[in-house]
């Protein structure tokens, strides 16, 4: 009896939960309203079956439950072919009613309209990059074997169609409203999945294949791109944005992007010019980039040029050192602003990377064994020897001084660093730093990093890796 009442209540609660739940599909931002319609049809058919069968069952239990020795015997009825056939037919009709519209809409999804323009989405552990066709409206060929530090998307340098392709190494892409777009999906390493909840459509990126989705964006706005196929440890930090723009805004954004040919023509940082620029840095960071704890200036020597350049860029543009609690970052921001342009940043970074390694003693106090276990997560991006990795945009950690590592980990933990919306990689570290639940965790990891070899594994520089 109780169980029958429970069933009735659960049916009522389920329906009520559905009606008053604030959690439902995000507002649609593409023209895939037909998908939402198919979901609705499925919902009403299955919802009716859910209510009807469960209420019938509850009624049967109430009516035919055993009420003591006087209860009537059950009816002996092995089968009832008429009823069974009738139920089968009704079920088949219900199923067909859900399947048929589903297949019609799927047909729309599979067949991309001819007028759709193409944009390529490239996934890698753990970030999104994009490529747009240039003037010729055609993407050049590409191959994973051509990937290197200067050609992160593996565009074929000998294909004339690819020279004017726009290379977007930010995780943010813009698309114009009301124009059907076919997104070609490609992966450099493992499976990923390009998913934008507001667009409804998603598809895996498969290395070795080019897959696709298509849609017509219908609402101006910025939408989260999530990776929805498990792609390794930092899967949950593989985020991006797609911005739906008016045609004018889109054109303006597009005009700012670099073509493949332009990215190939960027000159290497000039060490000699960089040395002159470094003069101002040396005041705090030391002549040889050895750092100065008294001035809260970290050691720079041994760090790779791409990382120095990236951080200078962030300081210069108010992405790092802008948080009100980032006391020392705020001091660095005006210093970076002195560097006139990207070329200046590249030059000084090249000089820093050329400085001789400077060995420091770690004085960190912590449980090294525990730190080693925790470091398994860190080492996935930063390298198991803490050597850093350009591909994951993770700086070298080995040899970095303990006070600086501790402070930065605390900054990431507390949201002082990595919260800025334009910070491409900081939020990933911010998410990872959530695993540090106590000061002990931080100290143990820093103590373990202090035991890593400082000289054996230098982070590669652009000059070495770009060959």
């Amino acid at each position: 009896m109780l169980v029958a009442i429970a069933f009735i209540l659960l049916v009522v609660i389920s329906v009520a939960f559905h009606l008053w739940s604030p959690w439902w599909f995000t507002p649609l931002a593409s023209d895939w309203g037909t998908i939402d319609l198919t979901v609705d049809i499925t919902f009403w058919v299955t919802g009716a079956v859910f209510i009807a069968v469960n209420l019938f069952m509850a009624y049967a239990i109430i009516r035919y439950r055993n009420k003591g020795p006087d209860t009537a015997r059950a009816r002996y009825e092995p089968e009832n072919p008429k009823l069974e056939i009738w139920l089968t037919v009704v079920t088949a009709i219900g199923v067909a009613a859900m399947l048929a519209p589903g297949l019609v809409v799927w047909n729309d999804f599979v067949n991309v309209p001819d007028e759709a323009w193409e944009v390529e989405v490239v996934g890698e552990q753990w970030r999104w990059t994009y490529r747009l066709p240039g003037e010729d409206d055609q993407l050049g060929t590409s191959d994973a074997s051509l990937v290197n530090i200067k050609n992160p998307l593996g565009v074929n340098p000998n294909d004339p169609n690819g020279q004017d392709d726009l290379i977007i190494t930010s995780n943010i892409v813009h698309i114009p409203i009301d124009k059907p777009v076919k997104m070609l999906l490609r992966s450099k390493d493992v499976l990923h999945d390009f998913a934008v909840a507001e667009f409804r459509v998603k598809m895996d990126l498969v290395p070795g294949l080019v897959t696709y989705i298509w849609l017509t964006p219908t609402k101006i706005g910025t939408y989260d791109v999530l990776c929805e196929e498990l792609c390794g440890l930092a899967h949950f930090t593989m985020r991006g944005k797609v911005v739906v723009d008016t045609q004018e805004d889109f054109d303006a954004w597009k005009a700012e992007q670099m073509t493949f040919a332009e990215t190939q023509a960027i000159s290497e940082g000039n060490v000699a010019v960089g040395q002159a620029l470094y003069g101002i840095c040396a005041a705090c960071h030391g002549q040889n980039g050895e750092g100065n704890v008294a001035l809260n200036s970290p050691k720079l020597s041994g760090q790779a040029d791409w990382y120095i350049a990236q951080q200078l860029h962030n300081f210069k543009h108010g992405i790092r050192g802008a948080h009100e609690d980032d006391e020392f970052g705020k001091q660095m921001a005006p210093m970076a602003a002195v560097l006139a342009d990207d070329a200046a940043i590249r030059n000084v970074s090249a000089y820093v990377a050329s400085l001789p390694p400077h060995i420091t003693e770690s004085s960190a106090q912590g449980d090294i064994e525990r730190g080693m276990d925790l470091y398994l997560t860190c080492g996935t991006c930063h390298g198991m020897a803490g050597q850093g990795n350009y591909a994951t945009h993770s700086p070298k950690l080995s040899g970095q001084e303990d006070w600086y590592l501790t402070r930065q980990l605390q900054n990431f933990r507390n949201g002082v660093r990595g919260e800025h919306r334009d910070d491409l990689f900081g939020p990933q570290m911010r998410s990872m730093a959530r695993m540090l639940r106590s000061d002990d965790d931080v100290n143990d990891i820093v103590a373990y990093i202090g035991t890593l070899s400082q000289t054996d594994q230098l982070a590669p520089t652009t000059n070495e890796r770009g060959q």
Partner: protein
Amino acid sequence: MAYVALSDRGQALSHPKSWVTKYVWSQDHKVIAIQYGITAIAVGVVALILSAMMRLQLGFPDSFSIISPSEYYQFVTMHGMIMVIYLLTALFLGGFGNYLIPLMVGARDMVFPYMNMLSYWVYLLSVIILMASFFVPGGPTGAGWTLYPPQAIMFGTPGADWGIIFMLVSLAVFIVAFTMGGLNYVTTVLQARTRGMTLMRMPLSVWGIFTATVLGLLAFPALLVSAIMMMLDRLLGTSFFMPAIVSMGEQTEYGGGSPVLFQHLFWFFGHPEVYIVALPAFGIVSDLLSTHARKNIFGYRMMVWAIVIIGGLSFVVWAHHMYVSGMNPYFGFFFATTTLIIAVPTAIKVYNWVLTLWQGNIHLRVPMLFAIGFIFTFIHGGLTGIFLGNVVVDLPLSDTYFVVAHFHMVMGVSPILVVFGAIYHWYPKMTGRMFNETMGKWHFWLTFLGTYAIYLPMHYLGFLGVPRRYYSYEGIDFIPESALALNTQISTAALFVAVVQILFFVNIIWSLFKGPKADGNPWGATTLEWQTKETPPIHGNWGPELPGVYRWAYDYSVPGAEKDFIPQNVPPAPGETSGT
């Protein structure tokens, strides 16, 4: 020499001579069943604890959680694999299959008792290998239970060094164990039924277990070959599943393989696997409902055909797990159609369970509560399957919490409710004692309502678009604070349900020593296992004479009969026209 049917031959049983041969190296199907059961449940408890750690992270990321992202993915993987393979498959087939098949078909034991014993010990070995992966450098694999390459064997995924190898070896060993057991179950059902036990008189439990075993024997080889191929990719540098790729900025030596090929192989196994778990549950729940409603199962023949048809169709629907995998999208038309067709025989089963209750005489005892609780959760989980099976509806929902909620409802909660119901139902036969009814009822209510509090709201996270397999969710604009609060509620319910399982363990262990003595047929059931002379049945089951079978398994409340049930081994009364 004239041919003698296997069931009529005096089977030479190797009777135990010592405690060790009776309880350890036993060839008695009942002892082996209990060994399988205890091992499976023990490893299931490990998986339950892993899920509690995951729920702490999802519900309380900044307060009570103690796991890192690496551990999160490792626990996700191990939880899934243990629950699906090492708990549910092993428990339904190795546990219930072993216990019930010989008793229900009137055999003295499995046809190959020695191989049956080996099957258990090899299974135990696979469990030990799996558990050992917690202690290797880098820990167990964190590739997700689907083990998709390339990431499963590449740097960047936890356990890509050792964990994945232990996982693949353990699976291969498990498949060896399953094959030895499975051949036994199939042969026993086909060859060792007692006189009169025609196929269409078999209880539905046997039909479910038998069909599931056939599915397993056909499906597991696909997993075995994919495990071997992945092992070769990992250890010898072949490229079955590995195209030319870059790993952490470095070119690899791989080239020419296909990650999608692995997914086809995996799901060619993985989809039938769903029914390897579900069909025994379907069968067992049918018998529980019929017995405790004192009514024949409604539409027996339709039920048998539904089991067989679902089993057959389960081999042509696998790619509905792959709608967004990047396979040729035209496959979507075929697989959506086959998948929705399978809903028809499945719905018929549900109707027939409910119609079995109709005009019954329903005794709401503990096993019955679990059985009808199953109908409720299975309806819920089955209907959400129609969402995911319909290719275009799957697009927004795939890889979200809707999927997690769906498969936990349909192949987590539902089969587990049947497992509990079945354990309570056969407990008096297995131990000779009754369990504590009150504690059993509390166990049902807290588990049933608790799991619904976990999974109903979880579907709505999926509608919102919250992705699965995320360690944390900060910084996603479309996920509001309220969704994270909902996660906290879900975690609370999950931890609650995990803790109340203590009631089950206390009950079955306490009752083993202190429970009132049970009569040989306390529920008044018709099937043969309740008609043994001794309870629990002795080695050889039947004494000198095998039982003969004269009727189907569902003669409950036959008009004019003295009692409201007639066991299968009771000959027809004079003038009785037995229909089946």
